[in-house]
């Protein structure tokens, strides 16, 4: 269980996040959606521990945790190291954890196909398109294999087909390994398709506006045309327009 309590955050004198309270149970898949600049990335930075909030605290199972412990964070920028090839970039997290080279390579080869990266493992980042770079960053975060994953628009610039296959794959991983996932996205359909709860944020200052429980029994992974789905989508759009 992650508890996000009374988070306030200022940048210089501007209030960026105001009174964020959110409790995420283990095994939940949460989507966060909100207008650009409302502080979604800032919130994930704070949850991951790389940014200190002005007030408030984050606890996991009731305890404060060290940065990098239990939480994998895929940031919005791909942040690939230009001097490392795809393989070496993907493996950096495990390398830092001290895993032996051969095991890291095995894990990468094992997952590369799911990410559509098997042909590109020896490419350098500057030789890849934006979508491919994002997949490498995604793979890097997934490989670390922490129980909690923060994903900041992981599928932002991917084509629809790759996106949909990664959706399925992500749901698979999520169920099989009982992960807890917080996903930031701009894509309302994606938010509903994947999550059991959608958090809508509003801007100036960033705060939680509304929260929707998604009945997973009524949402099919691919079907975006059911009545339930469309109704939910309409409500969220209304929130975002207001």
């Amino acid at each position, binding site marked *: 269980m992650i508890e996000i309590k009374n988070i306030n955050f200022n940048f210089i004198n501007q209030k960026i996040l105001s009174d964020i309270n959110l409790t995420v149970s283990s095994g939940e898949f949460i989507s966060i959606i909100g207008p650009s600049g409302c502080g979604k990335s800032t919130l994930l*930075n704070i949850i*991951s*521990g*790389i*940014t200190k909030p002005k007030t408030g605290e984050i606890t996991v199972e009731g305890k404060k945790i*060290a*940065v*990098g*412990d239990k*939480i*994998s*964070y895929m*940031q919005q*920028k791909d*942040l690939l*190291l*230009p*001097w*490392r*090839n795809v393989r070496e970039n993907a493996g*950096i*997290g495990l*390398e*830092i*954890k001290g895993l032996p080279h051969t095991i890291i390579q095995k894990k990468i080869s094992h997952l590369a196909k799911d990410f559509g990266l098997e042909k590109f493992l020896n490419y*350098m*980042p*500057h030789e890849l398109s934006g979508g491919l770079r994002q997949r490498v960053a995604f793979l890097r975060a997934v490989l*670390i294999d922490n129980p909690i994953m923060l994903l900041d628009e992981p599928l932002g610039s991917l084509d629809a087909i790759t996106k949909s296959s990664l959706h399925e794959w992500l749901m698979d991983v999520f169920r099989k390994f009982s992960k807890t996932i917080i996903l930031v996205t701009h894509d309302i359909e994606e938010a509903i398709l994947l999550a059991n709860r959608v958090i809508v944020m509003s801007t100036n200052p960033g705060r939680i506006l509304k929260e929707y429980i998604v009945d997973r029994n009524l949402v099919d992974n691919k079907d975006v045309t059911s009545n339930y789905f469309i109704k939910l989508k309409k409500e969220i759009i209304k929130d975002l327009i207001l």
Partner: protein
Amino acid sequence: MKKNIIIKNYLPPTASVFFVLILWQFSVIIFNVESWFLPSPSNILIELINSYEILLENSLVTLSEITIGLIISILISIMISGMIFWFKSFEKTIYPLLITSQIIPVFTLAPILIVWFGTGLFSKIIIIVLFTFFPLVINLVTAIKNVDMDMIRMFNSLGCTKFQMFRKLYIPAILPNFLSGCKVACVISVIGAVIGEWIGSSNGLGWVMKISGPQFQTARVFASIVCLSFIALVLFFTVVMLEKKLLRRYPN
């Protein structure tokens, strides 16, 4: 195809150098310039061959001063930048000192250094270090400051130690700047060596130039300059080769 690229890259500079040399040679002949005033390139070449022993001996002296000086300078700059990485406040402490050390023209210190450390190898090394460590340190400090904040955060979010951060992020990130600092230092080190030898020494190419000028052995002065340029070129291209090897995988 590869041959074409080589021709395209090396032909123009080689041709222009030859053009200048030929122009020089013919001007000296046509205007009948005396060799003690301005020796022709062929005169300089003859001098290089005739006094190759004295030139080689003193080139080796200068080269060893430069090599030792550069190595010490590089080690000092790495130490300082390491300190800046580990102790944030160290930068504020060292920066004013670094800047002040550059306001004093180093060559005015040279006579004092000769008084303090004698006319041997040691004083030359100190002068070379004083000349070269600044571009090295400045390049490193700037590079350290420019390491992408988001990358640092990313490494933090992976739960890395400070040492891992240094090894896996900082060292590769600052390597290109470090090598360009080395290139500058290589060229400057030659100037430092000559100044040191000029002011107080009994060997080295700077000393050869100093005693040859007043004796109107102008060809020998030029021959020494050729040797010095050759040393600078060799050092410079050593770093270029190193760059080619170490930065092979970097973009651009």
